């Protein structure tokens, strides 16, 4: 169970085309990532809603194929 960095980026980009995304493979094992997502779509939303938008873009992979993804969201 692992997910490629490019794949994660692709899913987020699909859901939030305007987003700028920085992803790091924290442990080099394809299983622990951190993502910083900056998007205008976050405007006016709570942190919980913002993180949910990122989780939703991964279409159920979070917590399954993707074990750990630390998320930081920023409004543009």
């Amino acid at each position, binding site marked *: 169970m692992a997910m490629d960095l490019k794949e994660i980026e692709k899913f987020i980009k699909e859901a939030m085309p305007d987003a700028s995304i920085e992803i790091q493979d924290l442990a080099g094992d394809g299983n622990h990532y951190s993502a910083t997502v900056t998007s205008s779509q976050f405007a006016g939303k709570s*942190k*919980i809603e913002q*993180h*949910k938008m990122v*989780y939703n873009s991964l279409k*159920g992979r*979070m*917590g399954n194929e993707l074990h*750990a993804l*630390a*998320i*930081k969201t920023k409004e543009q």
Partner: protein
Amino acid sequence: MDDKTKNIIQNHIDTNDVCLFMKGTPDAPQCGFSMAVSNMLKILEVNFKSVNVLEDQSIREGIKIFSDWPTIPQLYVKKEFVGGCDIVKEMYESGELKKVFSDKGINFKK
């Protein structure tokens, strides 16, 4: 999620002002993210109830549906979902977490 699981989760949240669903226990956390949140609460000397989701598979899966949140840990304060590890950490660092405790009348180390 069946009603029994939902009731157990609801009961934990209703009867504990600060309730942390985590992997392992505060003394023996089984995941770095759970440990991080548990340690932040310990540093703030907050009295909290921890629920070890590894002890019950139905709660482990149920809490994700209950909160509509795919990961664990999950922190509830006064019945309100505050967030997972990333959000709680950000709030801890910005001082916002203390504000939440203060606003909700939870005792913590000032």
